[in-house]
Protein backbone atom coordinates (compact mmCIF):
# COMPACT_ATOMS: atom_id res chain seq x y z
CA UNK A 1 0.00 0.00 0.00
CA UNK A 2 1.78 3.13 -1.12
CA UNK A 3 -0.98 5.67 -0.49
CA UNK A 4 -1.24 7.43 2.85
CA UNK A 5 -4.33 7.15 5.02
CA UNK A 6 -5.29 10.73 4.14
CA UNK A 7 -4.92 10.05 0.41
CA UNK A 8 -7.01 6.89 0.60
CA UNK A 9 -9.74 8.59 2.59
CA UNK A 10 -9.82 11.53 0.21
CA UNK A 11 -10.06 9.26 -2.83
CA UNK A 12 -12.83 7.14 -1.29
CA UNK A 13 -14.80 10.14 -0.03
CA UNK A 14 -14.66 11.83 -3.44
CA UNK A 15 -15.56 8.68 -5.31
CA UNK A 16 -12.18 8.31 -7.02
CA UNK A 17 -11.56 4.93 -5.39
CA UNK A 18 -13.80 2.21 -4.00
CA UNK A 19 -13.20 1.03 -0.44
CA UNK A 20 -13.60 -2.53 -1.73
CA UNK A 21 -10.68 -2.10 -4.12
CA UNK A 22 -8.54 -0.52 -1.41
CA UNK A 23 -9.26 -3.42 0.94
CA UNK A 24 -8.54 -6.04 -1.74
CA UNK A 25 -5.22 -4.34 -2.45
CA UNK A 26 -4.35 -4.36 1.26
CA UNK A 27 -5.30 -8.03 1.59
CA UNK A 28 -3.17 -8.90 -1.43
CA UNK A 29 -0.20 -6.98 0.00
CA UNK A 30 -0.59 -8.77 3.32
CA UNK A 31 -0.75 -12.16 1.55
CA UNK A 32 2.41 -11.32 -0.35
CA UNK A 33 4.60 -9.89 2.42
CA UNK A 34 3.29 -11.14 5.73
CA UNK A 35 4.75 -14.64 5.36
CA UNK A 36 8.12 -12.90 5.80
CA UNK A 37 7.25 -10.05 8.17
CA UNK A 38 4.99 -12.18 10.41
CA UNK A 39 3.20 -9.03 11.52
CA UNK A 40 -0.34 -10.48 11.46
CA UNK A 41 -1.75 -13.21 13.69
CA UNK A 42 -5.23 -12.95 12.15
CA UNK A 43 -6.44 -11.39 8.90
CA UNK A 44 -10.09 -10.39 9.20
CA UNK A 45 -10.75 -10.75 5.50
CA UNK A 46 -14.50 -11.36 5.49
CA UNK A 47 -15.19 -8.59 7.95
CA UNK A 48 -13.01 -6.17 5.99
CA UNK A 49 -14.68 -7.03 2.69
CA UNK A 50 -18.16 -6.70 4.18
CA UNK A 51 -17.30 -3.36 5.83
CA UNK A 52 -15.82 -2.04 2.58
CA UNK A 53 -18.88 -3.09 0.59
CA UNK A 54 -21.15 -1.36 3.10
CA UNK A 55 -19.04 1.79 2.88
CA UNK A 56 -19.20 1.78 -0.93
CA UNK A 57 -22.97 1.34 -0.73
CA UNK A 58 -23.23 4.35 1.58
CA UNK A 59 -21.17 6.41 -0.87
CA UNK A 60 -23.42 5.27 -3.73
CA UNK A 61 -26.45 6.48 -1.75
CA UNK A 62 -24.80 9.88 -1.50
CA UNK A 63 -23.95 9.70 2.20
CA UNK A 64 -21.05 11.68 3.56
CA UNK A 65 -18.19 9.40 4.61
CA UNK A 66 -15.85 9.89 7.57
CA UNK A 67 -12.31 11.28 7.61
CA UNK A 68 -10.77 7.79 7.47
CA UNK A 69 -13.12 6.40 4.81
CA UNK A 70 -11.76 3.16 3.39
CA UNK A 71 -8.43 3.28 5.26
CA UNK A 72 -7.26 -0.25 6.13
CA UNK A 73 -5.83 -0.61 9.63
CA UNK A 74 -4.83 -3.38 11.99
CA UNK A 75 -4.45 -3.64 15.76
CA UNK A 76 -2.09 -5.27 18.25
CA UNK A 77 -3.77 -8.50 19.28
CA UNK A 78 -4.53 -7.25 22.79
CA UNK A 79 -7.42 -5.17 21.37
CA UNK A 80 -10.79 -6.94 21.52
CA UNK A 81 -12.09 -7.77 18.07
CA UNK A 82 -15.69 -9.01 18.12
CA UNK A 83 -15.77 -12.72 17.35
CA UNK A 84 -12.11 -13.45 18.14
CA UNK A 85 -10.35 -14.37 21.37
CA UNK A 86 -8.03 -11.58 22.52
CA UNK A 87 -4.61 -13.21 22.54
CA UNK A 88 -2.39 -10.52 24.04
CA UNK A 89 0.46 -12.48 22.49
CA UNK A 90 -0.17 -15.47 24.74
CA UNK A 91 -0.93 -19.15 24.33
CA UNK A 92 -3.19 -19.19 27.38
CA UNK A 93 -5.66 -16.59 26.06
CA UNK A 94 -6.30 -18.67 22.92
CA UNK A 95 -8.77 -20.58 25.09
CA UNK A 96 -10.69 -17.42 25.96
CA UNK A 97 -14.17 -17.01 24.49
CA UNK A 98 -14.45 -14.72 21.48
CA UNK A 99 -14.78 -11.03 22.35
CA UNK A 100 -18.38 -9.82 22.27
CA UNK A 101 -17.57 -6.31 21.10
CA UNK A 102 -14.70 -4.36 19.55
CA UNK A 103 -12.39 -2.22 21.68
CA UNK A 104 -13.50 1.41 21.89
CA UNK A 105 -10.64 2.66 19.70
CA UNK A 106 -11.54 0.18 16.94
CA UNK A 107 -15.13 1.41 17.14
CA UNK A 108 -14.01 5.03 16.89
CA UNK A 109 -11.75 4.41 13.88
CA UNK A 110 -14.57 2.38 12.35
CA UNK A 111 -17.01 5.24 12.92
CA UNK A 112 -14.58 7.47 10.99
CA UNK A 113 -14.70 5.00 8.09
CA UNK A 114 -11.49 3.01 8.69
CA UNK A 115 -11.61 -0.71 7.93
CA UNK A 116 -10.08 -3.30 10.24
CA UNK A 117 -8.08 -5.90 8.34
CA UNK A 118 -6.53 -7.87 11.17
CA UNK A 119 -4.82 -8.49 14.49
CA UNK A 120 -1.09 -8.09 14.94
CA UNK A 121 1.73 -10.02 16.54
CA UNK A 122 3.10 -8.81 19.88
CA UNK A 123 5.38 -9.82 22.74
CA UNK A 124 3.58 -12.05 25.22
CA UNK A 125 1.30 -10.08 27.53
CA UNK A 126 3.18 -6.93 26.38
CA UNK A 127 6.09 -7.62 28.76
CA UNK A 128 8.63 -7.16 26.01
CA UNK A 129 10.77 -4.72 24.05
CA UNK A 130 11.89 -7.11 21.28
CA UNK A 131 8.83 -8.02 19.20
CA UNK A 132 9.72 -11.68 19.59
CA UNK A 133 7.02 -14.18 20.48
CA UNK A 134 7.68 -17.78 21.42
CA UNK A 135 4.22 -18.90 20.29
CA UNK A 136 3.75 -16.99 17.02
CA UNK A 137 7.38 -16.43 16.05
CA UNK A 138 9.04 -13.00 15.88
CA UNK A 139 7.62 -10.15 13.86
CA UNK A 140 10.39 -9.04 11.49
CA UNK A 141 11.87 -5.65 10.81
CA UNK A 142 10.85 -4.48 7.32
CA UNK A 143 14.27 -2.89 6.77
CA UNK A 144 16.26 -6.03 7.63
CA UNK A 145 14.39 -9.30 8.10
CA UNK A 146 17.10 -10.64 10.41
CA UNK A 147 16.44 -7.83 12.88
CA UNK A 148 13.94 -7.17 15.64
CA UNK A 149 10.90 -4.97 15.20
CA UNK A 150 11.10 -3.89 18.80
CA UNK A 151 8.24 -4.53 21.14
CA UNK A 152 5.94 -5.17 22.46
CA UNK A 153 3.86 -3.70 19.59
CA UNK A 154 6.17 -5.39 17.08
CA UNK A 155 3.55 -6.46 14.55
CA UNK A 156 2.00 -2.98 14.63
CA UNK A 157 5.31 -1.39 13.59
CA UNK A 158 6.23 -4.11 11.11
CA UNK A 159 2.87 -3.82 9.34
CA UNK A 160 3.18 -0.03 8.90
CA UNK A 161 6.94 -0.01 8.31
CA UNK A 162 6.52 -2.73 5.68
CA UNK A 163 3.62 -0.86 4.05
CA UNK A 164 1.07 -3.62 4.66
CA UNK A 165 -1.31 -1.02 6.10
CA UNK A 166 -1.00 2.77 6.43
CA UNK A 167 -2.24 2.78 10.02
CA UNK A 168 -2.08 0.51 13.07
CA UNK A 169 -2.73 0.64 16.79
CA UNK A 170 -0.56 -0.53 19.66
CA UNK A 171 -0.07 -0.12 23.38
CA UNK A 172 2.73 1.50 25.36
CA UNK A 173 3.31 0.73 29.03
CA UNK A 174 7.03 1.48 29.17
CA UNK A 175 7.86 2.18 25.52
CA UNK A 176 5.99 -0.41 23.46
CA UNK A 177 4.86 2.15 20.87
CA UNK A 178 8.04 4.26 20.84
CA UNK A 179 10.59 1.42 20.75
CA UNK A 180 9.12 -0.39 17.71
CA UNK A 181 8.49 2.96 15.99
CA UNK A 182 12.19 3.67 16.37
CA UNK A 183 13.45 0.28 15.22
CA UNK A 184 11.05 0.06 12.25
CA UNK A 185 11.44 3.69 11.16
CA UNK A 186 7.86 4.94 11.50
CA UNK A 187 5.87 7.52 13.45
CA UNK A 188 4.15 6.60 16.71
CA UNK A 189 2.10 8.59 19.19
CA UNK A 190 1.86 7.75 22.86
CA UNK A 191 -0.71 10.25 24.10
CA UNK A 192 -1.04 11.50 27.67
CA UNK A 193 -2.03 8.80 30.16
CA UNK A 194 -5.82 8.84 30.29
CA UNK A 195 -6.34 10.60 26.96
CA UNK A 196 -7.45 7.62 24.86
CA UNK A 197 -9.82 4.92 26.06
CA UNK A 198 -8.35 1.52 26.84
CA UNK A 199 -11.77 -0.10 27.13
CA UNK A 200 -11.89 -3.70 25.93
CA UNK A 201 -8.17 -4.21 25.59
CA UNK A 202 -6.13 -6.72 27.55
CA UNK A 203 -4.16 -4.82 30.23
CA UNK A 204 -0.59 -5.21 31.40
CA UNK A 205 0.15 -2.55 34.06
CA UNK A 206 -3.06 -0.63 34.59
CA UNK A 207 -1.36 2.41 36.12
CA UNK A 208 1.02 2.74 33.14
CA UNK A 209 -0.93 1.40 30.14
CA UNK A 210 -1.52 3.72 27.17
CA UNK A 211 -2.84 3.06 23.65
CA UNK A 212 -1.92 4.93 20.49
CA UNK A 213 -1.48 4.93 16.71
CA UNK A 214 1.38 4.19 14.29
CA UNK A 215 1.60 5.76 10.82
CA UNK A 216 4.07 6.66 8.07
CA UNK A 217 3.61 10.42 8.35
CA UNK A 218 2.58 13.00 10.92
CA UNK A 219 -0.67 13.91 9.18
CA UNK A 220 -1.95 10.33 9.30
CA UNK A 221 -0.91 10.03 12.93
CA UNK A 222 -2.89 13.17 13.82
CA UNK A 223 -5.85 12.05 11.69
CA UNK A 224 -6.09 8.77 13.60
CA UNK A 225 -5.48 10.41 16.96
CA UNK A 226 -8.23 12.97 16.40
CA UNK A 227 -10.69 10.24 15.44
CA UNK A 228 -9.99 8.32 18.65
CA UNK A 229 -10.17 11.16 21.18
CA UNK A 230 -13.02 11.64 23.62
CA UNK A 231 -14.20 10.45 27.01
CA UNK A 232 -15.28 6.86 27.44
CA UNK A 233 -17.06 5.78 30.62
CA UNK A 234 -15.93 2.20 29.93
CA UNK A 235 -12.34 3.12 30.89
CA UNK A 236 -12.20 4.60 34.42
CA UNK A 237 -8.82 6.19 33.62
CA UNK A 238 -10.07 7.98 30.48
CA UNK A 239 -10.45 11.67 31.33
CA UNK A 240 -13.43 13.92 30.71
CA UNK A 241 -11.61 16.42 28.54
CA UNK A 242 -13.09 17.90 25.43
CA UNK A 243 -11.81 16.57 22.13
CA UNK A 244 -8.86 18.73 21.11
CA UNK A 245 -8.33 18.12 17.37
CA UNK A 246 -4.72 18.50 16.28
CA UNK A 247 -4.92 18.12 12.53
CA UNK A 248 -6.53 21.51 11.81
CA UNK A 249 -3.65 23.22 13.66
CA UNK A 250 -0.78 20.95 12.69
CA UNK A 251 0.76 23.48 10.29
CA UNK A 252 0.35 26.51 12.55
CA UNK A 253 4.11 26.58 13.14
CA UNK A 254 6.24 26.35 16.24
CA UNK A 255 7.66 29.86 16.41
CA UNK A 256 7.27 30.36 20.14
CA UNK A 257 7.73 26.78 21.26
CA UNK A 258 10.64 26.42 23.70
CA UNK A 259 12.55 23.25 22.86
CA UNK A 260 15.49 21.62 24.62
CA UNK A 261 17.48 18.40 24.32
CA UNK A 262 17.50 15.99 27.26
CA UNK A 263 21.05 15.64 28.55
CA UNK A 264 22.69 13.50 31.20
CA UNK A 265 20.87 10.17 31.52
CA UNK A 266 19.55 10.46 27.95
CA UNK A 267 23.06 10.57 26.49
CA UNK A 268 24.64 7.97 28.73
CA UNK A 269 24.69 4.62 26.98
CA UNK A 270 23.40 5.90 23.66
CA UNK A 271 25.05 4.53 20.54
CA UNK A 272 26.42 7.16 18.11
CA UNK A 273 23.44 6.73 15.78
CA UNK A 274 20.98 7.49 18.59
CA UNK A 275 22.84 10.69 19.42
CA UNK A 276 23.18 11.60 15.75
CA UNK A 277 19.42 11.30 15.25
CA UNK A 278 18.75 13.70 18.14
CA UNK A 279 21.45 16.08 16.88
CA UNK A 280 19.85 16.21 13.44
CA UNK A 281 16.45 16.99 14.90
CA UNK A 282 17.89 19.62 17.23
CA UNK A 283 19.88 21.25 14.43
CA UNK A 284 16.84 21.45 12.16
CA UNK A 285 14.88 23.08 14.96
CA UNK A 286 17.84 25.36 15.81
CA UNK A 287 17.86 24.06 19.35
CA UNK A 288 21.04 24.54 21.30
CA UNK A 289 19.68 24.24 24.79
CA UNK A 290 20.23 21.18 26.97
CA UNK A 291 18.00 20.32 29.88
CA UNK A 292 18.42 17.82 32.68
CA UNK A 293 15.45 15.62 33.46
CA UNK A 294 15.81 15.21 37.22
CA UNK A 295 16.23 11.69 38.58
CA UNK A 296 15.53 9.97 35.26
CA UNK A 297 17.44 6.82 36.28
CA UNK A 298 15.34 6.55 39.42
CA UNK A 299 12.19 7.12 37.38
CA UNK A 300 13.13 4.24 35.13
CA UNK A 301 13.86 2.09 38.19
CA UNK A 302 10.51 2.92 39.77
CA UNK A 303 8.68 2.13 36.52
CA UNK A 304 10.54 -1.17 36.45
CA UNK A 305 9.38 -2.08 39.97
CA UNK A 306 5.76 -1.07 39.42
CA UNK A 307 5.69 -2.97 36.12
CA UNK A 308 7.11 -6.16 37.60
CA UNK A 309 4.69 -6.17 40.50
CA UNK A 310 1.47 -4.97 38.84
CA UNK A 311 2.17 -7.34 35.97
CA UNK A 312 2.67 -10.18 38.43
CA UNK A 313 -0.55 -9.31 40.22
CA UNK A 314 -2.45 -9.45 36.92
CA UNK A 315 -1.09 -12.89 36.10
CA UNK A 316 -0.75 -14.44 39.58
CA UNK A 317 -3.47 -17.05 39.13
CA UNK A 318 -2.20 -18.02 35.69
CA UNK A 319 1.33 -18.33 37.11
CA UNK A 320 -0.03 -20.73 39.72
CA UNK A 321 -1.94 -22.92 37.33
CA UNK A 322 -0.47 -22.44 33.84
CA UNK A 323 3.16 -21.47 34.40
CA UNK A 324 4.37 -23.90 31.76
CA UNK A 325 2.23 -22.22 29.09
CA UNK A 326 3.92 -18.80 29.37
CA UNK A 327 6.86 -17.62 27.30
CA UNK A 328 9.67 -18.61 29.71
CA UNK A 329 11.25 -15.14 29.53
CA UNK A 330 7.95 -13.54 30.56
CA UNK A 331 7.13 -16.18 33.17
CA UNK A 332 10.44 -15.84 35.01
CA UNK A 333 10.10 -12.05 35.22
CA UNK A 334 6.50 -12.30 36.44
CA UNK A 335 7.31 -14.92 39.10
CA UNK A 336 10.10 -12.67 40.35
CA UNK A 337 7.69 -9.72 40.31
CA UNK A 338 5.23 -11.64 42.48
CA UNK A 339 7.91 -11.88 45.17
CA UNK A 340 8.75 -8.16 45.44
CA UNK A 341 7.58 -6.75 48.80
CA UNK A 342 4.71 -4.28 48.61
CA UNK A 343 6.68 -1.78 50.71
CA UNK A 344 9.04 -1.26 47.78
CA UNK A 345 6.17 -0.76 45.37
CA UNK A 346 4.65 1.89 47.60
CA UNK A 347 7.97 3.72 47.69
CA UNK A 348 8.02 3.66 43.89
CA UNK A 349 4.50 5.13 43.83
CA UNK A 350 5.51 7.88 46.25
CA UNK A 351 8.52 8.65 44.06
CA UNK A 352 6.24 8.75 41.05
CA UNK A 353 4.27 11.70 42.38
CA UNK A 354 7.45 13.49 43.50
CA UNK A 355 9.00 13.03 40.07
CA UNK A 356 5.83 14.22 38.33
CA UNK A 357 5.96 17.44 40.32
CA UNK A 358 9.62 17.99 39.33
CA UNK A 359 8.75 17.39 35.69
CA UNK A 360 5.77 19.77 35.77
CA UNK A 361 8.13 22.37 37.23
CA UNK A 362 10.54 21.68 34.35
CA UNK A 363 7.72 22.28 31.87
CA UNK A 364 7.31 25.84 33.15
CA UNK A 365 10.72 26.53 31.54
CA UNK A 366 10.44 24.43 28.39
CA UNK A 367 7.60 23.21 26.18
CA UNK A 368 9.13 20.29 24.31
CA UNK A 369 12.05 17.98 25.11
CA UNK A 370 13.94 15.90 22.55
CA UNK A 371 15.47 12.55 23.56
CA UNK A 372 16.49 9.33 21.84
CA UNK A 373 13.72 6.73 21.52
CA UNK A 374 16.08 3.76 21.72
CA UNK A 375 19.77 3.48 22.64
CA UNK A 376 20.58 1.87 19.26
CA UNK A 377 19.11 0.70 15.94
CA UNK A 378 17.37 -2.66 15.64
CA UNK A 379 19.33 -5.55 17.22
CA UNK A 380 19.34 -8.97 15.58
CA UNK A 381 16.42 -11.29 16.29
CA UNK A 382 17.48 -13.57 19.11
CA UNK A 383 20.21 -11.23 20.29
CA UNK A 384 20.30 -11.52 24.07
CA UNK A 385 22.65 -8.74 25.12
CA UNK A 386 24.13 -5.48 23.89
CA UNK A 387 26.74 -3.09 25.24
CA UNK A 388 25.55 0.29 26.53
CA UNK A 389 28.13 2.68 27.91
CA UNK A 390 30.67 -0.15 28.15
CA UNK A 391 28.34 -2.43 30.12
CA UNK A 392 26.86 -5.62 28.65
CA UNK A 393 23.13 -5.65 29.38
CA UNK A 394 20.10 -7.78 28.41
CA UNK A 395 18.40 -6.40 25.27
CA UNK A 396 14.89 -7.37 26.36
CA UNK A 397 14.83 -5.17 29.45
CA UNK A 398 17.02 -2.32 28.26
CA UNK A 399 15.73 -1.21 24.84
CA UNK A 400 13.35 1.01 26.80
CA UNK A 401 15.80 2.87 29.02
CA UNK A 402 14.93 6.20 27.38
CA UNK A 403 11.19 5.63 27.07
CA UNK A 404 10.45 4.36 30.59
CA UNK A 405 11.17 7.58 32.54
CA UNK A 406 8.70 9.43 30.27
CA UNK A 407 5.70 7.08 30.21
CA UNK A 408 6.22 6.63 33.97
CA UNK A 409 4.33 9.91 34.45
CA UNK A 410 2.20 9.64 31.36
CA UNK A 411 3.73 12.44 29.26
CA UNK A 412 2.65 12.60 25.61
CA UNK A 413 5.35 11.67 23.11
CA UNK A 414 5.56 11.60 19.33
CA UNK A 415 8.23 9.13 18.21
CA UNK A 416 9.66 10.24 14.87
CA UNK A 417 12.00 8.30 12.57
CA UNK A 418 15.33 9.65 11.38
CA UNK A 419 16.11 7.67 8.22
CA UNK A 420 19.78 6.90 8.88
CA UNK A 421 21.52 4.24 6.79
CA UNK A 422 21.47 1.31 6.93
CA UNK A 423 18.82 1.39 9.66
CA UNK A 424 16.47 4.11 10.90
CA UNK A 425 16.22 5.19 14.52
CA UNK A 426 13.69 7.29 16.40
CA UNK A 427 13.62 10.48 18.41
CA UNK A 428 11.13 11.18 21.18
CA UNK A 429 9.37 14.54 21.06
CA UNK A 430 8.12 14.91 24.62
CA UNK A 431 5.55 17.47 25.78
CA UNK A 432 3.77 18.38 29.02
CA UNK A 433 0.58 16.49 29.92
CA UNK A 434 -2.29 17.12 27.46
CA UNK A 435 -0.02 18.96 25.00
CA UNK A 436 -0.02 16.30 22.28
CA UNK A 437 -0.54 19.06 19.74
CA UNK A 438 2.86 20.55 20.57
CA UNK A 439 4.66 17.23 20.10
CA UNK A 440 2.85 16.67 16.79
CA UNK A 441 3.51 20.22 15.56
CA UNK A 442 7.23 19.80 16.23
CA UNK A 443 7.08 16.41 14.49
CA UNK A 444 5.40 18.07 11.51
CA UNK A 445 8.01 20.80 11.43
CA UNK A 446 10.79 18.17 11.32
CA UNK A 447 8.93 16.27 8.63
CA UNK A 448 8.63 19.39 6.50
CA UNK A 449 12.32 20.07 6.99
CA UNK A 450 13.02 16.60 5.60
CA UNK A 451 14.80 15.46 8.77
CA UNK A 452 12.30 12.78 9.75
CA UNK A 453 10.58 10.38 7.37
CA UNK A 454 9.56 6.74 7.24
CA UNK A 455 12.09 5.08 4.93
CA UNK A 456 10.77 2.91 2.11
CA UNK A 457 11.03 -0.79 2.91
CA UNK A 458 13.08 -2.80 0.40
CA UNK A 459 10.80 -4.48 -2.15
Amino acid sequence: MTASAAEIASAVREGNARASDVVEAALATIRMHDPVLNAFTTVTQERAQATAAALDARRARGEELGPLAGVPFAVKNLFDIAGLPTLAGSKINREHPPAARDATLIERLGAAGAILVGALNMGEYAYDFTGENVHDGPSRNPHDKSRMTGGSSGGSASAVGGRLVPLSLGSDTNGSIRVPSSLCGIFGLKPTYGRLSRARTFPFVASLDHLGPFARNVGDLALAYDAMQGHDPDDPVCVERPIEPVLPRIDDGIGNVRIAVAGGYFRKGAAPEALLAVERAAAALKVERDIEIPEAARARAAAYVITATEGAALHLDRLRTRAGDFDPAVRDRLIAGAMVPATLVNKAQKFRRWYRERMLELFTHVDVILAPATPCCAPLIGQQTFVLDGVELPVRANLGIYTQPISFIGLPVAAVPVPLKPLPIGVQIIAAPWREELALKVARSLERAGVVAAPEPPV
Partner: protein
Amino acid sequence: MGTQGDPLDDFIDAAAHALELPLDPAWRPAVKANLLVTLRQAALVSELVLPDDAEPAPVFRA
Protein backbone atom coordinates in the same frame (compact mmCIF):
# COMPACT_ATOMS: atom_id res chain seq x y z
CA MET B 1 16.39 -25.45 49.14
CA GLY B 2 18.51 -22.43 50.09
CA THR B 3 22.01 -22.84 48.75
CA GLN B 4 25.18 -21.65 50.41
CA GLY B 5 23.17 -19.63 52.89
CA ASP B 6 22.15 -16.92 50.41
CA PRO B 7 19.18 -15.29 52.12
CA LEU B 8 17.65 -14.47 48.74
CA ASP B 9 17.44 -18.20 47.99
CA ASP B 10 15.64 -18.72 51.27
CA PHE B 11 13.34 -15.82 50.46
CA ILE B 12 12.54 -17.23 47.02
CA ASP B 13 11.76 -20.62 48.51
CA ALA B 14 9.55 -19.12 51.20
CA ALA B 15 7.80 -16.74 48.82
CA ALA B 16 7.12 -19.45 46.23
CA HIS B 17 5.75 -21.69 48.96
CA ALA B 18 3.62 -19.02 50.61
CA LEU B 19 2.26 -17.70 47.32
CA GLU B 20 1.68 -21.21 45.94
CA LEU B 21 3.82 -20.44 42.94
CA PRO B 22 5.33 -23.40 41.13
CA LEU B 23 9.08 -23.03 40.79
CA ASP B 24 10.71 -25.57 38.51
CA PRO B 25 14.40 -25.84 39.46
CA ALA B 26 15.24 -25.02 35.84
CA TRP B 27 13.47 -21.63 36.14
CA ARG B 28 15.14 -20.72 39.40
CA PRO B 29 18.32 -19.03 38.13
CA ALA B 30 16.32 -16.73 35.84
CA VAL B 31 13.77 -15.96 38.54
CA LYS B 32 16.56 -15.14 40.99
CA ALA B 33 18.38 -12.98 38.44
CA ASN B 34 15.18 -11.08 37.68
CA LEU B 35 14.36 -10.64 41.36
CA LEU B 36 17.86 -9.34 42.01
CA VAL B 37 17.54 -6.76 39.23
CA THR B 38 14.13 -5.65 40.49
CA LEU B 39 15.33 -5.38 44.09
CA ARG B 40 18.32 -3.33 42.92
CA GLN B 41 15.98 -1.00 41.05
CA ALA B 42 13.79 -0.74 44.15
CA ALA B 43 16.87 0.06 46.25
CA LEU B 44 17.77 2.85 43.82
CA VAL B 45 14.28 4.30 44.25
CA SER B 46 14.48 3.98 48.05
CA GLU B 47 17.79 5.84 48.22
CA LEU B 48 15.96 9.09 47.58
CA VAL B 49 14.47 9.96 50.94
CA LEU B 50 11.01 11.49 50.65
CA PRO B 51 9.02 13.14 53.44
CA ASP B 52 6.63 10.99 55.46
CA ASP B 53 3.67 12.87 54.04
CA ALA B 54 4.66 12.27 50.40
CA GLU B 55 1.49 11.10 48.68
CA PRO B 56 1.73 7.99 46.47
CA ALA B 57 0.78 8.53 42.83
CA PRO B 58 -2.53 6.64 42.77
CA VAL B 59 -5.08 8.69 44.66
CA PHE B 60 -8.45 7.12 45.40
CA ARG B 61 -11.43 9.41 45.18
CA ALA B 62 -14.72 8.26 46.62
